[in-house]
């Protein structure tokens, strides 16, 4: 009985956990540009204060969507280009490069660490930005 109720509580807690959900590539629609999300190197996601999980196809769509939304944000997520895992947007390092096209034209990719970003910068000349610099950069869906 106790075990059952523990399990139930765990289930209940996990049900209202407010992390991002995995993006279903090839199925989900981008909450901003409405396109079907295809490229697993670039997906992004916003979790709103209400707990809505909004998948997007690129960092540039995430920036635009957050700027236009009047809802509070609980957390923002971007995809680490190398591992294709979702990572926190605030701590990621971003590469803007015209040699690495991203889904909505801004040429932005995200990396879990500065080392990974610098490695990518050698292959795709451009500039590195942190989250604050990225938001101030004015980069958006072109």
């Amino acid at each position, binding site marked *: 009985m106790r075990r059952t109720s523990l399990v139930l509580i765990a289930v209940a807690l996990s049900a209202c956990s407010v992390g991002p959900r995995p993006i279903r590539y090839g199925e989900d629609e981008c909450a901003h540009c409405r396109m079907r999300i295809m*490229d*697993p190197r670039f997906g992004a996601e916003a979790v709103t204060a209400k707990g809505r999980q909004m998948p997007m196809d690129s960092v540039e769509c995430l920036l635009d969507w957050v700027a236009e939304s009047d809802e509070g944000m609980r957390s923002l997520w971007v995809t680490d280009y190398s591992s294709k895992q979702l990572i926190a947007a605030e701590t990621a390092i971003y590469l803007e490069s015209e040699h690495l096209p991203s889904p909505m034209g801004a040429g932005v990719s995200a990396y879990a660490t500065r080392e990974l970003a610098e490695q990518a910068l050698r292959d795709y000349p451009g500039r590195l930005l942190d989250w604050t610099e990225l938001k101030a950069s004015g980069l958006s869906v072109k």
Partner: protein
Amino acid sequence: MRYFLFAILLLFGAPGADARQFDVVPGGEGLAATIAEASAGDRIVLLPGIHSATAVTIDKPLTIEGRPGAIVDGGGQGSILLVETNNVTIRDLHIRNTGVSYSRDFAAVKVENAKDCLFENNLITDVAYGFHIARSSAILVRSNTIHSAFTDQTSSGNGVHIWYGNNITITGNRITGQRDGIYLEFLKDGRITGNVCEQNLRYGLHFMFSDRSEYEDNVFRANGAGVAVMYTKNVTMRRNRFEKSWGGAAYGLLLKEINDSVVEDNLFLDNSIGMHAEGSTRVKLTGNTWDRNGWAVRIMGNCEDCVFHQNIFSGNAFDVGTNTRRNPNRFEGNFWGDYRGYDLDRDGVGDVPYHPVRLFAMLVEKNPPALIFLRSAFVSLLDVMESVAPALTPETLVDEAPLMRRPK
């Protein structure tokens, strides 16, 4: 004038005068070696049989063509032909088997920084990308057949892919089984005509940031998500067929942030959503037919000054859906299959305005699962009450001059 022509001849040499022809036999010294030996203006003919080629660079103006039965096989590794100069023609070849990669764009024909090239009558099979064309201009892609059988959308590529281009024409191609049939990003002055894009995994046509481009007389049928035309001004879309896009995020035509454009004489047949428009302004929609769609048109509140005139709506579950009561767009003089008005003065125009947004469509917009009540008697009753006294549907979204008969 005569002197001028003479000067041109002096500059470039009489065409064909000293051009040589090289025949390449399968398994011989190969295409790459022949290209090295050839000089500008020469013709290379591949004889029937299988020619292995991986990342063969074409770095001088040449014509490369195949006799029937000539196959260029990439062996599943990387790209096959790389065009890196102007005035290249590739025709009558069967090109097949590129590599497949999540991070590299492997193509049957990869073109970069080129001008004045012609690619025609090629058969291209089992490739990530068919033609991958970047930073190029004055390119003609004509009458090619591109077909692959990918099931994994994320590693597949597009049939014809343009990334930064000028003055590019894509015409008479048939593209199936790719990710997007035709993909345009940053193309200015593009013409996409008479292509058939069918059963591609995502879009038949993906069209983004491509001002002053037109697409006409194409057929887009049964592609995973339909056609997307986005973030562009001055687009002309005429006489296309948008057919059989079924599913959650599937639209016959998705218009997003499209300004000052024309949608004319198209047919939207048998789609979940015939056309979805958001953030679009000053789009003229004339002479189109929406037949047998779930929603014919969904037009979001952030669209402005879009004008629907002389269109035909028939057999759709919903003619028009929207997400707001505010309506800054105009519907005037369309034919509505569900119109029940009369025409006492017999001028061909109904005397009673038509409200194409059903109350039920507004409810479904807010609460999609309510769709299961589509055929219920109560919903029909609601719709009748709402049409008598609109309370929730947009009051101004109304056709004051509905046509009594289908326009020709």
